[in-house]
């Protein structure tokens, strides 16, 4: 039988305890402290030849002189907003 307790400032039910910290994907983005990424988080895109490239990290880009900065397409990386 699962017991729910609230004593000494700790709430617990089953294996869950407020004294522990769990990795969780937050419902409220304001609770997030980091992002866990599915797929690549850093990439390089080559526009042409060997000189026109774009370094991509999320919505940030660093470009060669031959390429203007364009954010990576949607789906480049899937961020999971995480709290502990």
């Amino acid at each position, binding site marked *: 039988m699962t017991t729910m307790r609230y004593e000494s400032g700790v709430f617990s039910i089953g294996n869950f305890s407020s004294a522990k910290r769990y*990795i969780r994907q*937050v419902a409220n983005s304001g609770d997030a402290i980091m992002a*866990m990424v599915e797929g*690549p988080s850093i990439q390089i895109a080559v526009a042409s030849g060997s000189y026109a490239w774009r370094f991509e990290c999320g919505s940030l880009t660093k470009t060669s002189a031959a390429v203007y900065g364009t954010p990576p397409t949607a789906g480049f990386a899937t961020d999971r907003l995480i709290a502990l």
Partner: protein
Amino acid sequence: MTFRIASGKARLDVGGVTRFDSDDLLLHGASAGLSISGFVDIPNLSGGSGTTVNSTTSYDLGAVTAGHTQLIGAVKFNVNNSSVALAFDRWHMVMGGSIIWVMDGDPGFADALGDNSGLRQFVSYHFDISAGRARLVRRAFISNTPLPYTVIAHRITYKLRSGNWT
């Protein structure tokens, strides 16, 4: 500490920090999911001196439990050639995202120091799940530099678990 149940949800705050929100998603299946372990031997990758390398290569690592979306675990890179590279032999946590193996500038000239400017060589890896299969994906770029450029062969050893957020 406050624990509120309202509008069909429960929320627990401790010291102003949310410890639990019933709308949060937890990563699970990590221990019950299939263990995915093994290694991939990556051969020499050569470019430069007239040849541009611009490739994305997927290495299949096997099936994952249906519905799983995330791989976590540990990875180790080995270069078994101490004359050209550090034998990098330690485990690292993988919680998603890219692992940069090479990020280098212009190699300059054979008999003089170059300025190492720009981004001319780039190799990164990431693990992901695609169509129910775990993959190691390599993104490689070697520009047409004046000199030959070789990314030395290496072995990538991995111990992964899959999971999903629900």
